[in-house]
């Protein structure tokens, strides 16, 4: 057992009090344990601590938060090696509902805006639409996004223009459908993205790449969309 020190952002809108960073100490063996394990243990001591969690294995995207200054999923961030006290805050730039829970409406609005679904108006064949293994491989690195919001809320361009810049997660999703050999709406999608804010506020800062818990590269996806726009203009 070791004594772990944490400093956690606490905010209860009903109390009328301003948010505070509260210090905690916890007896926990950190070996092989994750930040989520520490939060769950703390919640047993103080049940008012609020955070989201579901799969506890990094596939559902519920528990994105800012851990020692870096956006990450609590459930796959090992306790070992973290500087103490471990500072845990909600994802930046989104309205805080309570403690570590943010209002993700804006994030999902951008997601919906890119029409994140396959558009193909041909009559449906009797069996599958063919797609070569090579065409399918183009989607790797695009379809695995879990919508945790770590990337978008780490992006300075999103911080400045959260309402107008779509952010890396939504743009990665746009690229996923533009790239899909089965999708027929590339032009329509590019028309929507050809905008000073929606797409072009990305300045290649690459915070998104740095924090993505799935190892995806939204900056590359955005670069690909930009290239397609240039190609189309020529």
């Amino acid at each position, binding site marked *: 057992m070791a004594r772990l020190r944490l400093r956690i952002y606490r905010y*209860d*809108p*009903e109390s009328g009090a301003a948010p505070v960073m509260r210090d905690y100490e916890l007896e926990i063996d950190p070996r*092989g344990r994750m930040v989520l394990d520490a939060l769950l243990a703390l*919640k*047993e001591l*103080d*049940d*008012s601590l*609020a*955070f*989201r*969690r*579901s*799969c*506890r*294995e*990094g*596939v*559902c*995207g*519920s528990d994105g938060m800012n851990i020692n200054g870096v956006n990450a999923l609590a459930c*796959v961030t*090992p306790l070992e090696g973290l500087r103490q006290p471990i500072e845990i805050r909600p994802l930046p730039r989104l309205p805080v*509902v*309570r403690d570590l*829970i943010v209002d*993700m409406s804006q994030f*999902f609005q951008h997601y*919906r805006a890119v*029409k*994140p*679904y*396959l558009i*193909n108006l041909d009559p*449906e064949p*009797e*069996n*599958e*639409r*063919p*797609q*070569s*293994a090579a*065409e*399918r491989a183009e*989607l790797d690195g695009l*379809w*695995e996004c*879990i*919508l945790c919001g770590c990337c978008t809320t780490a992006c300075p361009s999103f911080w400045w223009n959260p309402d107008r810049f779509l952010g890396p997660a939504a743009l990665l999703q746009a690229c996923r*459908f533009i790239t*899909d050999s*089965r*999708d027929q709406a590339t032009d329509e999608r590019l028309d929507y993205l050809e905008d000073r804010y929606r797409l072009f506020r990305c300045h290649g800062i690459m915070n998104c790449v740095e924090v993505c818990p799935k190892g995806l590269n939204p900056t590359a996806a955005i670069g690909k969309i930009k290239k397609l726009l240039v190609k189309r203009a020529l």
Partner: protein
Amino acid sequence: MIPKRTFDAVIVGGGGAGLRAALQLARADLKVAVLSKVFPTRSHTVSAQGGITAALGNVTEDHWHWHMYDTVKGSDYLGDQDAIELMCRNAASAVYELEHMGLPFSRLEGGRNAGRIYQRPFGGQSQRYGGEQAVRTCAAADRTGHALLHTLYQRNIAARTQFFDEFFALDLVRDAEGYILGVVALEIETGEAWLIEARATLLATGGAARVFRHSTNALINTGDGLGMALRAGLPLEDMEFWQFHPTGIPEVGCLMTEACRGEGGYLVNRQGERFMPRYAPHAQDLASRDVVSRAIAEEIEAGRGCGEHGDHVCLKLDHLGAALIQERLPGIRDLSIRFAGVDPVHEAIPVTPTVHYMMGGIPTNLHGQVVAPVRYGPEEPVPGLYAAGECACVSVHGANRLGGNSLLDLVVFGRAAGEHMIEYLRENRYPRALPRSGVERALERLARWDRPGGDERVPRLREDMQRILQRHCGVYRREDLLEEGIGKLDAVGARLADAAIEDRGRLFNTARLEALELENLLPVARATLVCALARAESRGAHAREDYPARDDDHWLRHSLYFLAGDQLDYKPVRLKPLTVEPFQPKERSY
């Protein structure tokens, strides 16, 4: 009165089954609301890895009837053969439909079927009724559930389905004639209770494996729909049957998909021996899950377990090569490195049987209608109530589910339920008067946790319950252990009255949520122990040390558990398929 919203249909749960049904209803231009206690893509469907089984025949010759045989045999003959026929017959069209929706299936490279959906071998799947291994499970790498759930969510966005994200359903509203008229739900963010009125209600709330201590399931799998059904006086079916997945990471429980073995991995014991051929000479590592889990338990029991405590075995993948692992099993590699501290490219992964899936659930017929013995017979539909997915028991999985059949169950019966709801709504055009009492009972559930109480705390009670189930209702069961377990669970149940939460907040009160979830978990735990104690035979996942043989004369029947007085009832297995000849029960070996 609490605020009210009215829809044609309400769906409780935003996983695969709920979203598939919602899509059917939304496309029929009906007003449909999906309530989900988490944002829908956080649902547990997202964790499914290996694939969805359908006899497409893209890799090896195949037929839906062979799939049906495997499923009946896999169920240890407890599955209803009409439902199994329906599922296997519709599997191919269900998978093609998902592909048309945009699901990014992996594709075959080269050969006659280049560019068609990739399929891999999975446990218990054979050609020609028990012959050679079939290659039948369609996959998107090892993240098929993620691909499926996101695709269905995306299609629902396109169909403009109305979502109520982070709404927790408290109870069904039922009138004196037994019609279900919607649900009372808690808006988690505001703490406000809503009446969601609908002429048809679908429960798609998923599994409840969090009744156990070690589970592959998400923390949200707390059997909320099961609790609602029990409190409405409805039974649960076959609750003694819980699948132990052979390969979960010890302690943390993360699933290492059966696709690991489908792609050529195998299990070894302490001596490095590949032991499965001793237990299943033909199918070996791809025997059905109950068989493999028991084999592992026996290896451990015989002192041939790996590790310092000899409490697990190892899953070997390193001979497959880094390239194959990276292409076909990238998620497994990631999970293994993070949670077991082992890179499968170089080392074997420690694994142990881990509770994974609930074969039982809310009894339904082929149309997803919830059925119960009310007045006339054992399978009388409850008007206005449907269930689909893991929370339902139709029963296609019987005593043991085959890998890849769960995602299939979600989409086939999600769609079937949606279809039937459309019909039901056409026949029942007008809303019925709402009873007052149904709403009040649900509100009392909420109010109870606002009052100060005794010294008991929710996390402790939950943990005690989980330890009881783990210890008293494991891979092997025994009468005295089960009886003792029921006694201990009684004590936990009694302590619930003294439990309180400290958080008095209204907004996003997760302590209250966990308390409400515990109230759903406890009766599920109870149903499990009571059904397991009663079933004096071994069948599928239910292995009794004191009754090691299957007993078709007495136990070829489904259990029905009612909350009032722990009452048990039984109903026959439907042995007659829809159009083909029945598969007669015979000895099951792999």
